[in-house]
């Protein structure tokens, strides 16, 4: 038998550990610290805060989808219930009820975590007995139930108007009154960092690993002594907690929660964020949350059809890039490092240009149709072009770009199949 201290050799070296584990967090912290120094605008802060919340929310979603293999259509329930509890706690702090007077607003996300985990523990108990497609349907039904119930219990949910609070109460922590938006930034940045760190750490716990094992092979897990239902249930509770943490962040950021926060819409959105970002990578949902929050805040101003673009993007990812943005990015760098760099780059650029052409075609089609459908006589005029639904130029342009896009993508695919 070999000397047992040899097991050290199996683990990554100190240098590897630093590069893979410590360094990314140092970089993240540095970015978060540097952002306010650039003197960001109010709009920037608004969008950035939403991103911070969504990053935590999407990562919590991926704890169950990516790591445990549970597809949920109702994850906003835990975000919403955690957030609601936090808004109520905001009120208790303001009125200094009992011990609440001595709790700083800054800690509200912890209350949110608790609320989300409690909701996860209650709802997860019947629903995590099943996995796979059944679980997905159940999550949808349960979400509908909670959403409907929200309108029956006004004292907690506040009816259509929801419940609002005021974050500028209670004890100040770190000298932050949380009044000005630049101070809220530190609050969001802090909790986003904590959230990311916490969820990353979870992947390195026994339960975190077990959840991956259960996703891979639920049967085998039983024969080494684990109850897969219990594994799912525990992961579900913790994921609910982190969703609630994001809810607590949102409670402080917006100072209001309405029943819409736990409807199917945000549940679908978080699924799309995580999946578009790439569920097989830890950072995937972070990418997805940043991109889609940006798209949501920017595009919804420019076009009414933003949900159409969202759906198209999602379907495109499902069909052509199931590993998401993270898969595309990491795949690109891997390809560059690979042996056939030239061929890889050529194929990659061909697909990219092809994709862009198809995107332009889609945009023309959608934007012209939307204006046509509205019937206000408004005309789509990108780059000084006059794209009327009745003009042949419009449809010519649409056909040309789409055709070129399809052609190029097909070419890239044929090339790929030829080389591999």
């Amino acid at each position, binding site marked *: 038998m070999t000397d047992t201290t040899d097991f050290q050799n199996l683990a990554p070296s100190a240098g590897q550990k630093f590069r893979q584990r410590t360094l990314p967090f140092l970089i993240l912290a540095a970015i978060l610290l540097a952002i306010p120094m650039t003197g960001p605008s109010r709009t920037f802060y608004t969008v950035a805060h939403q991103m911070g919340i969504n990053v935590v929310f999407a990562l919590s979603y991926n704890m169950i989808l990516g790591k445990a293999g549970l597809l949920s259509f109702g994850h906003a329930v835990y975000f919403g219930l955690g957030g609601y509890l936090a808004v109520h706690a905001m009120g208790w702090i303001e009125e200094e009820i009992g011990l609440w007077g001595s709790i700083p607003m800054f800690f509200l996300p912890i209350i949110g975590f608790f609320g989300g985990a409690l909701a996860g523990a209650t709802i997860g108990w019947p629903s995590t007995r099943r996995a796979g497609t*059944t679980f997905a*349907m159940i999550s*949808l*039904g349960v979400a509908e139930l909670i959403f409907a119930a929200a309108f029956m219990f006004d004292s907690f949910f506040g009816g259509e108007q929801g419940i609002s609070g005021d974050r500028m109460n209670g004890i100040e922590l770190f000298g932050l009154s949380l009044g000005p938006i630049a101070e809220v930034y530190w609050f969001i940045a802090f909790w986003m960092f904590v959230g990311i760190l916490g969820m990353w750490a979870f992947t390195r716990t026994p339960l975190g690993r077990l959840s991956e094992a259960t996703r891979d092979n*639920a049967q085998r897990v039983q024969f080494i002594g684990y109850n897969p239902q219990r594994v799912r249930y525990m992961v579900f509770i913790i994921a609910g907690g982190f969703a609630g943490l994001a809810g607590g962040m949102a409670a402080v950021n917006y100072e209001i929660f309405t029943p819409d926060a736990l409807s199917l819409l945000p549940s679908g959105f978080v699924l799309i964020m995580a999946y578009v970002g790439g569920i097989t990578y830890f950072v995937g949902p972070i990418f997805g949350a940043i991109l889609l929050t940006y798209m949501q805040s920017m595009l919804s101003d420019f076009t009414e059809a933003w949900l159409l673009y969202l759906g198209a993007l999602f379907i495109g990812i499902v069909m052509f890039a199931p590993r998401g943005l993270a898969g595309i990015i990491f795949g690109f760098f891997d390809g560059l490092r690979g042996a056939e760099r030239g061929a890889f780059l050529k194929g990659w650029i061909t697909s990219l240009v092809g994709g862009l052409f198809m995107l332009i075609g889609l945009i023309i089609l959608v934007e012209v149709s939307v204006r046509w459908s509205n019937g206000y006589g408004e005309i789509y005029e990108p780059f000084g072009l006059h794209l009327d639904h009745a003009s042949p130029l419009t449809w010519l342009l649409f056909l040309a770009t789409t055709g070129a896009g399809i052609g190029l993508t097909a070419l890239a695919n044929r090339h790929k199949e030829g080389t591999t």
Partner: protein
Amino acid sequence: METLVFGLLNGVSYGLLLFMLSSGLTLIFSMMGVLNFAHASFYMLGAYFAFTISGSSSFWIALFLAPVLVGLIGAAVERYGLRRVHPNGHVAELLFTFGLAYLIEEVVKIVYGKTSVDYRVPDLLNFAAFEVYGASFPAYRLFVIVIAIAMLIGLWYLLKKTRAGLIIQAALSHPHMVGHLGHNVPLIFMTVFGIGCALAGLAGVMAGNIFVTDPAMAIQMGPIVFVVVVVGGIGSLEGAFVASLVIGLLQNLAVGINASFADIFGFIGLSELSEVGRINISSLAPVLPFLLLVLILIFRPQGLMGEKEL
């Protein structure tokens, strides 16, 4: 008394509509393993197509043509979308149909506008079929029941008596064997998906003018259909049938009960003034399917007629 009679009749017609939807979903699911999230979107398409067709010709043409169109769209979706995603597994397929639901809803909004369209019951059927206790029962509802039963018989005939039905049944119980027997599995999948969607479209034609035809009708119906399928036991047509009727009856009977929780549970001290006490049974009707779902999950996780799974 008349509330009971009407509750029963409406419950049956609504339940049969639910079965039209859930049978298609079940068929697709048990054949292909695909949970079609966009199923209710095809139901919506059925209603809109029927609106367009009956506007330019007649309801009777729409009744036939709209489901066929929806079925063709479904087949195309399978051929050019799902089939591509298939190698990535069932979750990917489910996600594909999830994205599709978004797309269909947005396209419908662009084509038909964001508000409801005026899709009406045809004049020929717009009369009272009979009267009970002074209230009248619309003939169209009766018509729905007739069509649904006709569909039921048609489906039964298709499955039990035709060659295609035998293949489908074989594929249901031994999905891997059918390919070995030399059948064209992709073609079967496309057909089944198309038929399932056509059934949803038919339900849309029938229901769009009873309820409202608007872009939200898919998202309202979708979750209920899923509940039916889970409660019935996933993959079981019989289960889906029973669950459809149970849920249809439950909802329509509850609507007629004008009693609050306080009225019922007053004897244990539930006050009229408390929040729970104020909830009215009739207002609870939309939530009942989901409550039933939770109860089933707790007491019979495999569903009414499903088999146990891990």
